[in-house]
């Protein structure tokens, strides 16, 4: 699963799994944090290309990473988010802190 994390310059790219729930979320959060600390990335990009299901655990993953990097000026991005994921980000208010890209 480590191939789901890639560092490009000072960006961490996280390829989100097909199903994002609590069972899967700690793995993603812990590994993302490892990269943030060890590789000194500034920004995190969450790629939802493969994601077919997400519950509020996904919101927790994004929010937690945002809290870690925003104090140093880091930004959080979401790419390839389908309508449903955008809607979930919206009702959570996360569209205010996550840049949703086409």
């Amino acid at each position, binding site marked *: 699963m480590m191939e789901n994390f890639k560092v490009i310059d000072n960006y961490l790219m996280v390829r989100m799994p097909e199903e994002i729930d609590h069972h899967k979320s*700690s793995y993603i959060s812990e590994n993302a944090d490892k990269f943030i600390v060890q590789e000194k990335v500034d920004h995190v990009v969450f790629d939802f290309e493969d994601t077919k299901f997400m519950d509020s655990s996904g919101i927790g993953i994004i929010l937690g990473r945002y809290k870690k990097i925003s104090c140093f000026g880091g930004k959080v991005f979401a790419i390839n988010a389908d309508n449903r994921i955008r809607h979930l980000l919206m009702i959570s208010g996360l569209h205010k802190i996550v840049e949703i890209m086409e």
Partner: protein
Amino acid sequence: MKNEMKMEFDAISANEAFARVAVAAFVSELDPTLEEVSDIKTAVSEAVTNAIIHGYDGIEGGKVNIRCLIEQDVLHVEVMDKGNGIEDIEKAMEPLFTTKPELNRSGMGFPFMEAFMDDLEVLSVAGEGTTVIMKKKIGCIPWIEDEE
């Protein structure tokens, strides 16, 4: 149309996916849209996750119970645990309120259940457990009566 199903399973996180898939499979006789299926899966996932991590603090040994009832075109879902219970239900249901931020919880579980189901009721007694009762009307009744 009437159909009832009950299940009981170990309060471990591997069963979150099982529970939402099972409820989605149960409701498929109502011919829900993909969107309705996602709504139901999300709501069930939230309630079951809460039972596991808040009700039982992630400690193995507890059981989660789900009861589903289809009455005409309405799905009723109850998710029960015999865990910690909730002291202040009103506060617990506020968006972004969570008692486990250290576990990357977002406090959006109840708000998602409210957003995706037509009706949400939370019964809880501190020290005894929690029951979440949800309802959702499924849009389109299939236009042909199912054979048998």
